Structures are given as structure tokens and as C-alpha cells.
């Protein structure tokens, strides 16, 4: 169910969550190229817990809402998908319920591109960055901000266990507008 908000960004309601992380082969994880920071954290539950590939650990905020995760890239990157691991069964009132995704060149010009409502999620939650227009399959940005606007049961601080950010895999053949998949096509794709 998608509804147009007053800001013009897409608002989606998501329930459930997937216990297995499955992502298309044509996407690559981009988070390792970024600098990650958070608005606040409890000692021992810092930003590194979001990136340690361990579902037992979590980032815990320690301040007022919204709780922010900032993902900053040195160069402009194409991003297509954000995947969060959240667990209502374990985290209860610490589980995010409303999440906003913002993008821009830096803190000075972030624009909200999507707002998602999570309903008691347990597992991997997929947040596509594609717009209403089917041609807008990705965002081209220096910075992404994930804002936890509210938690379940009116909780103050939040727990997020993992965040992955995916973008289209770079084309192996430069200056080629599309990517061949079969070996034959790739073999004959350039003049020898």
C-alpha cells in the first residue's frame, strides 16, 4: 500500500520481514565504501554493530528522536536498495515503527525520498529506493540518512541490528549502456 505524502515522498507499510537475506545478483553492497555515523549510541552498542554481520549485536541509540544513521560517500553513488535487520520479538519497544529515508549532497540539503511504516517486523526488511516513476530505479547521491522517527509501543531509544545498502553492480565493460549476460554476447561485445 503506497500513499503519496504531503512532502511528495512515498509512504509504505511493511509487515513481517525475511529471515534470509536474498538480493539480486545485479546488486552489490555499497556500505563498505561509506563513512557511517549515528546521532547517538550507548557505549558498546555503537555504529560498528550495524556493520559486523552479526544479528546478535545491535546499535542502540541514546538520545532524542529522530535517531539518525548517516551514510556518507566520497563520490556520488547509485543506490537502489536498503535492507534493515530488526527484530520485534527480541527488541519490543526498541523496534523502529516509522522510518524515513533521506538523500542529498550533505546535511545541508537532505530530501526525504521515502517513509516506511514497519509493523512488528522480525528479520530483513527491504526498502526499495525506486520512485513512483518506474524509470527511477535508483538514487544518485553522496549521502543517505536513515531516520527512525518512532518506535513500537512508544519506545524512546531504538535497536537496529544490521543495515545493508545496495546499488547496481558496475558494468564490467566500460562505455556500454547495458550489460550482456551470456558468454557469447560478452565475447563479441567489443571489436578486436
Amino acid at each position, binding site marked *: 500500500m503506497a500513499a503519496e505524502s504531503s512532502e511528495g515522498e512515498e509512504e509504505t507499510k511493511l509487515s513481517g520481514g525475511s529471515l534470509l537475506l536474498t538480493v539480486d545478483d545485479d546488486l552489490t553492497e555499497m556500505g563498505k565504501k561509506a563513512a557511517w555515523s*549515528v546521532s547517538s*549510541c550507548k557505549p558498546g552498542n555503537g555504529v560498528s554493530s550495524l556493520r559486523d554481520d552479526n544479528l546478535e549485536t545491535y546499535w542502540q541509540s541514546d538520545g532524542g528522536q529522530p535517531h*539518525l544513521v548517516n551514510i556518507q560517500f*566520497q563520490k556520488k553513488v547509485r543506490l537502489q536498495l536498503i535492507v534493515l535487520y530488526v527484530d520485534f520479538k527480541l527488541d519490543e519497544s526498541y523496534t523502529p515503527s516509522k522510518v524515513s529515508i533521506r538523500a542529498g549532497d550533505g546535511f*545541508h540539503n537532505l530530501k526525504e525520498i521515502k517513509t516506511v511504516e514497519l509493523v512488528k517486523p522480525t528479520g530483513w526488511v527491504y526498502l526499495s529506493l525506486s520512485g513512483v516513476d518506474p524509470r527511477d530505479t535508483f538514487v544518485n547521491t553522496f549521502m543517505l540518512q536513515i531516520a527512525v522517527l518512532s518506535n513500537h509501543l512508544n519506545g524512546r531509544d531504538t535497536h537496529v541490528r544490521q543495515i545493508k545498502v545496495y546499488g547496481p553492480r558496475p558494468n564490467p565493460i566500460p562505455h556500454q549502456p547495458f550489460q550482456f549476460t551470456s558468454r557469447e554476447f560478452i565475447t563479441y561485445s567489443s571489436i578486436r
Partner: protein
Amino acid sequence: MDPPPKTWSIHMRSEITAKYEVLNRVGSGAYADVYRAIRLSDGASVALKEVHDSQSASREIEALRLLKGSRNVVVLHEFFWREDEDAVLVLEFLGTDLAAVIGEGDGVGVGEIKGWMVQALSAVDECHRNMIVHRDLKPSNFLVSDDGVLKLGDFGQARILVESGFNAPQENPPPYEDDTSNAESSTQHSESISQLVNLNQTAYENPNLGTLSHEEYFRVLDEMKTKSYSYDTDKDTNIYDGNTSCLATCTTSDIDDDLCKGSFTYEAEEVGGNELGCLTSCVGTRWFQAPELLYGSTDYGLEVDLWSLGCVFAELLTLKPLFPGTSDVDQLSRIVSVLGNIDEETWPGCHKLPDYGSISFGEVENPSGLEACMPNCTPDEVSLVKRLIFYDPAKRATAMELLQDKYFSEEPLPVPISEYNEVDSDSALEEFGTLNITTTGSDLSIQIP
């Protein structure tokens, strides 16, 4: 430039216009406006610095009085301070600065650069001997006279180690007021500082002790900090920006919204604990900020200046900034991409930094190294900068150690300062004697004879 409009506050102050002819404004910043003026008594050029923040003014005055007679520190002639007006400092006028030298580009020889480096090191060494941490070292704060003398200026963010027994007054009144109670605490303050200076200079200059080693120097510093000295607190900083966060994460900071932030200086009000001994991490200019400041440290030491000095030297040698970050996180990111990952191995105790848990970078497998940032520099030049650009503050070479670096004793030698006299035309003003205080109602004028 047009003559200054009469509405300028500095132009309306009779105690200043009686002694100085204000010519034109030569610079302005968040804290101060600087005007060029002529001293009517002898026609000498001076700089009038109108400081809009009382804490900044008192810090600058106190630091410059402690550093009186230092060859490579700007001279404070006198200052004017009225309760209802900004403080005005009368400083020696210097024509240009290192930022302008860097901006002009290629016409500078290695010998000249070495000469400026030696003088910059002397200035910082002088500050550190007197337990003054400048906290805003950058090319534009190293002023250069017409005959090549380099002098460190802008001590508005400087901090002085003071005796823990001295309680700074809450309201931060103008120093040296003609008032018995204040005079008493001011004397006590001065005594504690002079004791510290004497102790420190003894450690440096006593021939029986010899030169302190790097480890001993910082061990003595740490002992003094823990036993009988502490930093005065930053709680009275007069910037009240309700929407400013000092965290390195820059989540709500207007400061960090500016992509050109590298060229500005800021010091925001202390966030969180304001107990004595707590320093603000939001100080200095981003491109020259030490990583401990970027990670929100509030108990840093003199070593933050050494990192900044490394960045200044790299810029002098390459004519471009070493780490031109666009935000605090980007600043750290650039540093990490050059020096590699920050962990307990490279920086013992880094996990204790306030914002260490709030910022993370991808694993840097092949950091580019300082050599890549200084491609046309000699190994000796890179080595000099490397001695300052360390994550671990304890590993950074002191200014005194760098002055003895072989780089400065090899050809081409540092260019000697032409026609530099031990006693110049301002020497009479450099020697502070008894303060000449004139008060009329709420007005306060202080001359340093």
C-alpha cells in the same frame, strides 16, 4: 578603500580615536573585526582587533601577556575594554600571512619554506612551554611581516593550564579591573601561571637537566595535569546557537551544513558536562583539526596543535590542503583513507573517545599514505610531516624535537630573517610594566607601557 563610515562602533570610541586613526577594515570573522590604523604619536601602523566575544578577548589578552617578548608571537601593545562595548586589542600590524603565501603559488623557495617552518615551530614551542594550547593553528593565523618574520596570531581560542586551586569567576569579567577583590584573584591567577611557566621553563632550559625527551616531556605534563593543574573549563563560551551540536556526527549542526567550512573557525558552547577541566571539542578549523577533536574528545592536550602544524606544513610544501573535509565525518574519512584504520593498535585508548562508537569506516586495506598526498615532496619533507601526523597524540613529535630535525640542518638551509633585530621599533611596547588603568564610570582603558 573608502574612509570608514562614522557609524562604526570602533570609530565612535573617543579613547581609541584620540590615539589612533582608523584607516580601513582588513578582515572579519565570527569573533572579531580587524582594522588597520595609524598610531598618532609616531605614525606606526597597528592592527585594531575588535573582539565581539568577551571570553575570546580575555583568552587572547592573557595568552599574549604570557607570551610577551616572544620573537614569533604577535605583539599586543595595549587594549581597551568597556563594559558595554567590545574589547579592542591594539596589535602590531603584519602585512600578509601564510595563507596568502600559499595562494600565490610557486615562487617560494625551499629555503624560505624551511625558514617559515622554523619560525612556526618556535612560536608553537613558545606557546607549549607556557602551557598554552592555541587550538586554531592554520596558515591564515601565521602572519608574515615585510622582512620575512613569521608571527603567530589569533589567540582567541587559546587555553592556558592553570592551577586547580584558582576558581575562574563565573561571569568572566574583563581581566585586570581596578578592583581590589578582582585584583587579588587576578594576582593569584597570574602567580599560578608564572609558577607554571617557571617550572616549565626550568624543565626546558636548566642546563643540568638537559633537554627533556619526548616521553618525559609529556609525562611531566600529565603529572602536572593530574596532580596540581587542570584546564580551565570551556563553559562560558559566548555562542548560543540552540541548533548546534558539537558531536562529530554533525547531525543537527549548522556549522557542518557549510561545504566551505574548512575556511571558518568555530567554537560552540560546551555540550554536556561543564565541570572544571572539560574542554570543548568544537574548536579550531576543520581541515586542521586533530582526530581526537573530530571524535569529540574533551580532555585533549597540547598535541592537538602538533597535528594542525603537520597539516600546515603539508600545505606549505604542496600548496594544497592535506585533508580538505566537507564535514567532520568526511574529514575523518579522508584521514582514515590516508593513514588507515583507527583501532587500539594504531591508537591506544581510542575506544574511550566520546564519538568513537558513533562513527565507523569501511576497512581500509590499502591506505594511500602521506607520500601519495605529497607527490612532489622529498622523503625528508614527507618524513617531517609524518612526525606530526599520528593518530596517537603521544607519538606526535613536539615542536622542540622538530626544531632539531635534520631537515633543517641540510641544504638548502632555512633562509635567515633579513635585517631581523632583537630589539625592533616596538620593543618599548613589548616589555609589559605596571598596568596603566583608567576608569571612568563603566569605561576601562588599559595600556601596557
